[in-house]
Each structure stands twice: as structure tokens, then as C-alpha cells.
């Protein structure tokens, strides 16, 4: 219990410092985003001072002291209000994130879980049959695919499957004539559009999980308790799953929790290559347009996602690893 309380305090401290950094960083950047924004709003003629003032007010660009802005910033966060996006004005940051988040959660969430489960199982299996022909083939193929530069690989896939053979669409989250909604044709179209991005993510990420699990498992198999269990005559399957894999999976679990936290940020390269309407594209647009309110909103989501995932990983570790429970959390 003490362990969890301590972790909880750490969580709050991390959140506070991350949110404060999130507030400070854009304000420390060189250049003036307000001027860039005005340049964007400017027509062909020269705006009058009233117009410039009105636009600044409308975008929430303030000349208040930093401390006052900081207090306001906290107030807004508690109201889940991140201001208006510069790039998508008059739409708010919350509106843009609401639109993008479901796409990313579905595509990146599902592929992250799939990649972890398949990769880990393949790792266990490869370690169990280590040295066999299958192990060397699977492991070396996965090592090879996971070292592809993602952008290059995805473009090749688009080129072959969406251009030369035209089997899959080359971009978008769903058929362009459709309106998002819960009906069969829309869902079918969304799934169809997600196949290429999902496959490319899987191919490039499976190897990491598999390799790590295989290595952990192999070192676990050499531990004394496994030798003892084998000497006791336990069935091979119990030995592999309950003894070796249960201990070998601990580092992988932490990694998995971290990557679940990062799901919120989307996968920028994936989403850019496929023009997928998710958080990665949104973040890319926010950064390239110097849209600070939108960037801050997205970074906040990422911070919360990662910090929470870490916290959950700690709890899961307690459940999986009795040593942490008994040791009072010092391990």
C-alpha cells in the first residue's frame, strides 16, 4: 500500500512538472507565433491596428504577465478548455482533438495490442525452440523487417498495393464520400482504409517485442528455479508459461504500458504517409503551423497518457511480481 501511495505522489509531481513545462516551452521559443498568425489572417491589403487587436483578442493572445497567464492556464485545464486552434479557427482545440482521437485510439491502439501479443508469443515460442530452424528463420526475418526505415517501407507498400495494383486506397481514414457514423458501410470502409497502415505498423514493430521477449525468456530458462522445476518433473508447458515466461514478461509489460501511453500521440509517420485523420497528423499540422494552443493540447494528452500508463504499469507489476508486494516497493 505504501508503495502505491508513493507512486501516486510521484504521479502528481510528474503531471505538475510536465504541465508547467508544457506551459513554458512555447513561450520560450524564438519567433513570435502571434505575428505568424497575423500574417496568415492578413489579406492582400494592410490590416488596420483595430483589426490586428481584434484578431489577437479572438485568438487569446495576451500581453499579461507570465504568472497571471500561468494561473489562467491551470484554470482552463481544469475546465478542459485549451483555447482556439490557430490553424483551424474558429474551431477549438478540444473540438479538433475530439475529432482525431478516436481514429488514433482505434488504429494505433489495436495495432499496439496486437503487435505486443503476437510479438510476445512468438518470442516465447522462439526461445522455447531456440536453435531450431524455425527460430532462426522467424527471428532473423523479424529483425530484418523491424529495421526498415518506416517511411520508406510504407511508401513502397503504398506504391505496390495502392498504386501499381490498386488493391487498397492510398490515403484517408474512410471513403471520401462517406459521413462518419455507426453504420455497416462506414465501418467496413474504415476497416478497409486501415488495413495498409495497420499492416505496416505490425511489420515494423513486431520484431522489437519478439526479440526482447526471446532474449528475456532465454536468460530466464537458465535460472536455477527453472532447472529445479524441470528436475521436479513438471510438464514442459507449465515450465515454459508459468515459470519462465511469467518472469521474462515483466520488462516487456513495462514497455507495453509505455507504448500504450504513447498511443494518444498517434504515429506521426504512419498517419502522414496515409493521410490518416488522427492525432499524429494533427500534431504534425500543429507543429508545422506553429499552432501553440493545439500543440499544448496534444502534448497535454500525451503527458497524461504516458504518466497514467506508467502508473498502471506499476500496479500491474505489483500484481505480477510478488517480490514488489513483499519488499515494500524498494525493488
Amino acid at each position: 500500500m505504501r508503495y502505491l501511495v508513493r507512486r501516486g505522489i510521484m504521479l502528481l509531481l510528474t503531471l505538475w512538472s510536465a504541465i508547467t513545462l508544457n506551459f513554458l516551452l512555447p513561450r520560450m521559443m524564438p519567433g513570435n507565433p502571434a505575428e505568424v498568425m497575423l500574417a496568415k489572417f492578413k489579406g492582400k491589403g494592410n490590416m488596420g491596428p483595430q483589426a490586428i487587436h481584434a484578431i489577437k483578442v479572438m485568438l487569446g493572445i495576451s500581453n499579461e504577465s507570465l504568472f497571471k497567464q500561468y494561473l489562467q492556464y491551470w484554470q482552463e485545464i481544469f475546465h478542459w478548455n485549451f483555447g482556439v486552434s490557430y490553424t483551424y479557427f474558429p474551431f477549438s482545440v478540444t473540438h479538433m482533438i475530439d475529432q482525431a482521437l478516436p481514429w488514433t485510439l482505434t488504429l494505433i491502439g489495436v495495432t499496439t495490442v496486437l503487435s505486443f501479443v503476437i510479438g510476445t508469443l512468438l518470442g516465447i515460442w522462439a526461445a522455447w525452440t531456440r536453435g531450431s530452424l524455425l527460430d532462426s528463420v522467424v527471428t532473423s526475418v523479424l529483425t530484418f523487417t523491424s529495421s526498415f526505415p518506416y517511411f520508406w517501407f510504407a511508401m513502397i507498400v503504398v506504391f505496390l498495393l495502392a498504386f501499381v495494383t490498386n488493391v487498397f486506397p492510398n490515403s484517408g481514414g474512410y471513403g471520401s464520400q462517406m459521413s462518419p457514423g455507426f453504420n455497416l458501410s462506414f465501418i467496413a470502409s474504415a476497416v478497409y482504409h486501415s488495413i495498409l497502415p495497420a499492416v505496416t505498423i505490425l511489420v515494423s514493430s513486431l520484431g522489437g517485442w519478439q526479440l526482447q521477449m526471446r532474449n528475456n525468456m532465454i536468460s530466464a530458462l537458465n535460472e536455477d528455479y527453472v532447472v529445479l522445476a524441470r528436475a521436479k518433473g513438471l510438464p514442459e508447458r507449465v515450465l515454459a508459461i508459468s515459470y519462465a515466461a511469467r518472469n521474462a514478461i515483466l520488462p516487456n509489460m513495462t514497455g507495453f504500458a509505455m507504448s500504450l501511453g504513447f498511443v494518444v500521440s498517434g504515429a506521426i509517420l504512419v498517419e502522414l504517409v496515409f493521410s490518416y485523420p488522427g492525432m499524429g497528423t494533427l500534431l504534425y499540422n500543429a507543429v508545422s503551423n506553429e499552432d501553440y494552443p493545439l500543440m499544448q493540447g496534444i502534448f497535454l494528452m500525451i503527458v497524461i497518457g504516458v504518466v497514467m500508463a506508467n502508473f498502471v504499469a506499476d500496479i500491474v507489476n505489483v500484481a505480477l511480481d510478488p517480490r514488489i508486494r513483499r519488499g515494500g516497493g524498494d525493488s
Partner: protein
Amino acid sequence: MNTRRMALFALPLIGSLTLAACGSQGATSTAASGSTPPMVLSVDPGSPLYTDNWNPFSPNAVWGQAWIYETLYYIDAQNGHQTPWLATSYKWNSPTQLTFTIRPGVQWSNGTPFTANDVAFTFNMLNKFPALDTNGVWTVLKSVAAKGNTVVFDFKTPDVPAFTYIAETPIVPESIWSKVKNPVTYTDPHPVGTGAYLEKSYTPQEFVLVKNPHYWQASKVKVQTIDFPVVSENANTVWLNLSEGKYTAANAFAPNIQKIYISKDPKYRHIWFAPSGASNLLMNLTKYPFNNVTFRQAMAYAINRPKVSSKGEYGYEPLASMTGLTLPANNAYLDKSLVAQYNYHYDPAKAAQLLSSMGLKKNSQGLLVGPNGPISFTMIVPTGFSDWIEDAAIIQSNLKALGITVNVQTPSVSTWVSDMQTGTFDMTLNFGLNQYNPYFYYESDLATSNSAPIGQDATSNYERYSNQNVDNLLNEYAQSTSATQQKQIIDQLEQVMLQQVPVIPMFYAANWNEYDNRYYVGWPDASNPYVTPTYALPDVEMEFTHLKPR
């Protein structure tokens, strides 16, 4: 200014792969003979989805609103030719009073008649909500009032060129917009306009416009349906789609358009990258050595401008006239004898001679030395503008040959913009203003009123040029309604450009524009430049009364 650079994710690989692999086209085979497929325009980037915003005053509105709202006059951005549109005529009663006569018989798409009151309402709304007034018409206007079928504009100060901004303001219906509480944040989800098209359907990835059957010049509009699929974030995907022939027209940048687009179907596929305003090399005129006219003239000879245009800009952006005039559209203004007299061209020997006439000499290391040591300065170009960075490298090597050291830096776009505004730079490249006639270019770049002391924001005269004579000429122009007098003033400003070299015009920025005339004809091109294909207001008004099915 952000539509032109799409090469961030340019993979040279795809360009060459497409070459090898596509023999047959997907889209061309699907069309049944006899029926014309809808026009597909790949122009609105969405990024990555559209937001349902049709407010014609919003900088983030979908481009489709340009087909729905109209302006009082259509003015050709290249040469300033005027065509009456929602107004039938206009008259300057004095340099401070302008009257438009409104076209009779025009209807809003909801059936209510279009009147002078709508025009007056639109302008007064811009006054009430200054954030909408992005062209600053109310910096010179005093009042706008409807009188019968005319609208009278009273000015605070004489400003004849402001006609252009007034004439190009989209007009909205009073019956609808007067009920809108805050037109600044209004997204206008079901736009009602006077224009040639109506919104037929909208999804975040595509919107479709259909012809407005009650349009006031419906007989001229021949294109029935226009699809606007969202333009992919990934330039490579855009190039694949272009190469496949998925678009009737597009405004994409591609480094090798001949290979990836035209060569796939040379009979029908064409490009016309209409030249727009000259991009300028800016020098900070408050600093040594740029405050010396002879040094600036030497720069004009020292820099290989033809090479910058042909290599740095892939040859897409032609060499600009040293007068800054947009040619050939502004040929009528060009004083050829003046140009011949100054005869600027790439001539390092002449540049060296000018520099030595200033008393600058090379030292033993080959560096040109001034009173404060070797001459060296920094040139900034925004990061990601790969063509400009290449241009800067050419300039750097040209000047190195003369013993001048140039450090090229690539700050972020926002740093670049604010450095220019506050005047904290030595040398940079910047877009010039292109519109209607040379006055706007000269006014924005040379007027003292658009400058500011170093450290404060200048409006557009970033190099900080200031010349009482030029200011007087610009003022005279703004008060003149006589074309002959205006031309004389422009001639004198050309002389200032050539003699003083306040900026060095480098090349004309291009309007990327690819089109396929298999099904639709009547596109503007170099031999018939009746409009600049920008796919924005007011150019679409004109373009879509000319396009028709083959």
C-alpha cells in the same frame, strides 16, 4: 504563402519508380463514352480533413466558398483589367467618394433578391467586427451607405487603389448575416451566396458543388458538378494521384512535373505556372554596407540571377525584371529604354569594379576589406524552403568569388518573419506582392509608412527603404484617377528601382497549376491568360464562366 512549399516529404525514390511502372491509367478507362465525368479539383489541402467552415472572411474556410460568394468587380491580378460583376459600374465622384451601381436581377441562392443594402451591410459588418477586415478597407473608409440601386463609399483620405480591395470583398446576404451574433466565429455551414455554384454535399474528406440553376449568368456556366477531394498531407500521394490522372486540375508542387505528370498523357495533360509577383532579395538598408547605393548596384551585378531562377527554382520561376514589374502582364508599364540604360545582368567584373570604386580592396587572403574589416554578413532563409536554401547557396558562392563572406542560416518560419518585421537581419529572400498593377508592389516595398524603426514591427517595407520623393509619388498615385498620370508615376518608380536598387527582384513566384483537358476545355494558359488559376476568389468567378465540357 504556405501553398507553395510541399517538398518537405519529397522522396526522390517515388519520382523514379512511377516512371518505370505506370503504363496505363486507372481513371481514364473508367469513364463511359458520351458522358462527361464530374470535374475533380485537387486544390484545397484541408489538412488532413476539412472543417465545415464556409465563412468567406475566415482564413481557414474551405476553398469551396469562393464558388459561392461573389465580388463587386472581378479584377485580373496580372494586369489589373476590370470586369463588372455584382456591380455594373462604378464612378469616382471625387478622390474621396466612390459609387458602385448594383446589378439588377441577381438572386441569392435562397431566392431573395440581391440589393445595394446587402453590399452596404457587408461593409458595415467589417467595420463593426474589425477582425473580419483583413484587407484593412476601413483604414481609409469613413462610411458606406446604400442609396437606391447604388452604394456610396466615403473615404477619410483619398485612396484610389483601395478600390481594388473594396471591389474584391465577398458580399454576403443581409437577411442571414444580420442574424449572426458573431460573424468572426461563425462557420456558415449552409452558405447562401450569389455565385455560380451551390453546396451539394459535405463530408470531412470531400465536398461537392453543383451549378446554381438561378445564377445570374447561368448560360455561361457549363461545368455541372465539381468534386473537391481533400488533398493528401503526403506530397508523394498527391504525385501518385496526379500521375494516375485522378484530378481534372490540381495546384500541386512537384520537382519534376514533366516526368511524373505530363509524360504520362502528353496529349491532354498540361501545366501553366502563371507568374505572380517578384520575390525579392532584401538587404537591411540601415546597415553598412547595404546603406551604400553603389554596393547594392554591385550586388545586382554580382549575383547570378538567371542561375538562381533556372537551378535554385527548377526553372519554374522565371527571372524577374529588375524594375520589379510582373512581366509579361505588366509590359504596358515597362519603360524599355530605362531598362536598357541600366542594363543589369550577371557581370562579376562590373561588380568588382563598382566595389573597388567604393574603396573596398581585397586583402592577402582574398577577402574584401571595408573600414571595419572584411565584409561579411548573414543571410537568413526559412527552414524547409528547400529552393530558397539552394538560391542562398548560389548567392553565397557568387559573393565569395568577390571576397564577400555570406553565412547562410535557416531559422524557423516564425523567426524569419519576426526578424524581417523587426529589421534584425542582414539579407534575406521574401515574397513580393503581386496584384493588379505595379503600384501595390511599390507601395508595399518602398513606402516609408510601411517601414518602422529597427526593433519595431514594419508592415511590409522590411528592408527599411525611405525616400521622400518616392512617398510623394505614391501619394500622388493614390489620389489620381487618371490612367496617364498613374503610368507616369510608375515610370518614375521604375527609375528608382533601377537607380537605387532598394531590393533586388529575383524571380517570379509561380502559381502551381496542372490541368487535364480530356473532358474539360477552356483553361487559362500562357497564350490565353484570361485569369490566374489560383482557385480562390475572385479568380474562380472568371475561370468557371469559361470552362466547358469538351
